[in-house]
Structures are given as C-alpha cells and as structure tokens.
C-alpha cells in the first residue's frame, strides 16, 4: 500500500502563509467499518495508488477483516458525502516473539485528491480507539524505509521507532546464498 497522507502536528497553526491547507473541515469526514458496497471504491482507490486492480484480493480481505473481524480485525473507511476518501486495515496480534497484544496497522490508502484533509488522522484515531477498547496498549506498523510520505505521516501521529526490528532474507534460487 502506498499513499500520500497529510502530516499533523501540534504546530499545525504555524503553517506558512500560502502553504498547503486542508481543503475541507474535519467534521465532514466520517470513519466507519467497511461495507460490501464500498468495495468498488476501495478497489479503485488501491488501483489508483498501486497501479494494480486486485478485485479478488479485496474480496478476501473484506471477508477476513470486514465481516469476520470479531472485534480484533478492522477494515475501516473514511467517507465524505457518500464517497470513500480512504481506508485503513489493522488487527490485534498477540504474543509474537513474546510481545503482548498489540494493534498492527498494515494497510492505509487515501485518495490523492483528499490529501491534507486529516483523513489519515481520522482513520488512525478510529483504529486506535478500537484497539484500546480490547485492552491493546501499543500500536505498530511496518513500512519500507524509503516510503518517506507514509513514514512521516505515522511520525506526525507520534509514532517512533519501536522495540522490534524487522529483518528479512532473500530466499529461493535467485537469492545468491
């Protein structure tokens, strides 16, 4: 997933004269669980950002996170005027390598036309609230180190480097091992 998101901060009021400003008031954006009828817009949004149209994949994600979440998996959408502006998917993961239950955010997309309108902030706040409701006290995510826009978005929300370090290994015939 890749998307450009607004960056918030306590100094938001310090924006430069003439700098980018939110294009709409926050109150108009509503965050709620995804519905079947939202999927075409979600699929189109994902295709806009990633360049890949993955209808089957999104149907599977909807079944697992949209209707089968059982309070631990969440697929949220941000809507305004009936239009999907963005979505976020997360789940509670517990006892991975001894880590107590934590809230994992593993997908986020915001319509490029809706940037700078705190859509990502609203989605993350709603996800956080759902995690807190089941006792989760740590929020985590993992991003490519060169995904500067998403990294800076999560940083702007107060997230910092955590206790876990991601590692990876190329495997298979082309791995060079």
């Amino acid at each position, binding site marked *: 997933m890749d998307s450009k998101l*607004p*960056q*918030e*901060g*306590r*100094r*938001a009021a*310090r*924006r*430069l*004269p003439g*700098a*980018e400003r939110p294009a709409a008031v926050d109150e108009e954006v509503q965050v709620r669980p995804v519905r079947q009828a939202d999927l075409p817009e979600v699929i189109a949004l994902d295709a806009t950002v990633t360049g890949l149209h993955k209808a089957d994949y999104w149907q599977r994600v909807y079944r697992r996170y949209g209707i089968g979440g059982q309070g631990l998996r969440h697929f949220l959408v941000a809507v305004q005027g009936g239009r999907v502006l963005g979505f976020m998917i997360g789940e509670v993961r517990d006892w991975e390598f001894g880590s107590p239950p934590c809230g994992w955010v593993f997908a986020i997309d915001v319509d490029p036309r809706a940037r700078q309108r705190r859509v990502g902030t609203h989605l993350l706040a709603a996800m956080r609230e759902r995690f807190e409701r089941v006792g989760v006290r740590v929020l985590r995510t993992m991003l490519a*180190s*060169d995904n*500067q826009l998403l*990294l*800076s978005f*999560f*940083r*702007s929300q107060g997230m910092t*480097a955590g206790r876990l370090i991601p590692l990876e290994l190329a495997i298979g015939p082309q791995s060079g091992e």
Partner: protein
Amino acid sequence: MKLQKNTELALYSVLEFAARPGEHVPAAEVAAKYGESLHHLAKVLSELARAGIVDSVRGVGGGYRFAANPRRLTLLDVIRLFEDLGAAAPAAAEAATPVDRALGQVLAEIDQIAQATFGSITVATMLGMVDRAAARAP
C-alpha cells in the same frame, strides 16, 4: 551517522526559523543563541537560501524567514545539503578484506536506518517534539 558541525547548525537554524513563521529573524540572533560566529552561520544560511528553505531580507528589520512547507520538509532534506550521504557505501564495497566488506555492510545498514529516520521526520513533527520536550523540562 555523524553529522558535521555545519549540518547541525543548519538543523538548529531551520527549526528556529520554522518556529517563527512569517517573521524575519536576524542571523546575529541565531548565532548568539547557539554560540556560533556570524561568519560561520552566514555560510550555512546562504546554502539554505539557495535551496529555497529560507528567504533573506537585507537592511533594517531584515533577517531570514522560513520559506518551505514545514509539513513536507524533512530533516533529511536539510542534511542532504551538507552531507555526502552516498560516500560510505562505495568505499565499503572496495574494501580490501572480507572483514572490511562485512563490516562495511553492517555500517551501510546502520546508515540506511539513520537516513530513513531522518527522512521520516518533518520540520512540523520536529517542532511538535520540541514542544513536548519543553513541556517535560523541569
């Protein structure tokens, strides 16, 4: 990643100007605050002005004004102006021994993480962190 003196001074200056948007801050004021010579600071500010991060106004009431988007400009954007970030990797690749190469690989990994961290923190986020640090101060 060890930052050079100029880079640190550039970061201090950018944060100083960004915290006072629209205001022309005299270079002498920044130099005095951070205990640097005005001559030294002027070179740094000149580079920042060339990059469009600050504007300068001469004369009475003049000074430097933050001119970038604080929600987009990252620490890495500023650091890149003063540091040759690509220099370490080729040197490591040409290292003479397997130990050198292995060690170079580790150091490159550390640099990559450092750069990703600097690249993820915008000036706006940094100002928020400064605020919180100030609130925690005894």
